[in-house]
């Protein structure tokens, strides 16, 4: 098994009112100095070892993200199991 992380973000040119709302709330709570917030989605997938990169890319493009409005990145991450051994590739 491998863990795959897919991060999906609204494209830069797409208005992100949710991020703006968060950015607007921070000063009201007393947090200064945050000039911009953009809000996206973070997916963690546990996948079998024989799932190749091309398949992962297709998963992201067809379902997890809408290519019209969103950009995405796919990466495999190292998973440390309960017994301390390290599995997966970075």
């Amino acid at each position: 098994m491998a863990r795959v992380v897919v991060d999906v973000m609204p494209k830069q040119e797409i208005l992100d009112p949710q991020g703006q709302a968060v950015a607007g709330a921070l000063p009201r709570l007393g947090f200064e100095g945050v000039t911009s917030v953009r809000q996206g989605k973070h997916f963690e997938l546990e996948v079998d070892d024989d799932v190749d990169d091309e398949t992962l890319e297709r998963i992201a493009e067809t379902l997890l993200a809408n290519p019209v409005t969103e950009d995405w990145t796919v990466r495999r991450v190292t998973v440390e199991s309960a017994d301390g051994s390290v599995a997966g590739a970075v």
Partner: protein
Amino acid sequence: MRVGVITFPGTLDDVDAARAVTTAGAEAVPLWHGDADLRGVDAVIVPGGFSYGDYLRCGAIARFAPVMGEVVTAARGGMPVLGICNGFQILCEAGLLPGALVRNSGLHFVCRDQWLRVENTTSAWTTRYDRGAEILVPLKSGEGRYVADEATLDRLEGEGRVAFRYVGENRNGALRDIAGITDERGRVLGLMPHPEHAIDALTGPSDDGLGMFLSLLDTVVTA
């Protein structure tokens, strides 16, 4: 004449869509999301609601429902398809219409009677209207802001595919005030406002929405 109305888990407006079809003088045929079967209908309506709870993105899961595969194939073959609100979002996700619907620019869920200007009177769903006519129909959506890249917007305008535009204040921030668009052939129409809620003055703000369903009858009967 038979018009299919799809029900997904979370669909809300299938009953009103079927009522609009019946009021216009056609037979409404219920279609189930899990059946890859259009039951021999002449046209399909993808109604509003919150299919699959709007999980992931509005319409992103519904797009892969078995019935939608049949709808996409039929639409590519020229069958008239109307997507209302969540149905519009589903048709965009399915690639039958360009662009996408994203969160309203003000973040507020907009629920109001909305004036629209009719800009296309040649599509399968709009022939009963006069060009430039203003109609009053309910708008109720949180993710109704139409977006597409500039080239797509220019192409839609150049090809006369902007069917409806918001008149007055544009509450969701839709680019170029776009409320509804058609596909290249004018057979597929998607719009955020709800014509099926405006088919008689007893239950809606007007009967202005009925024209879309009557237009479809003309289209199919004269085909």
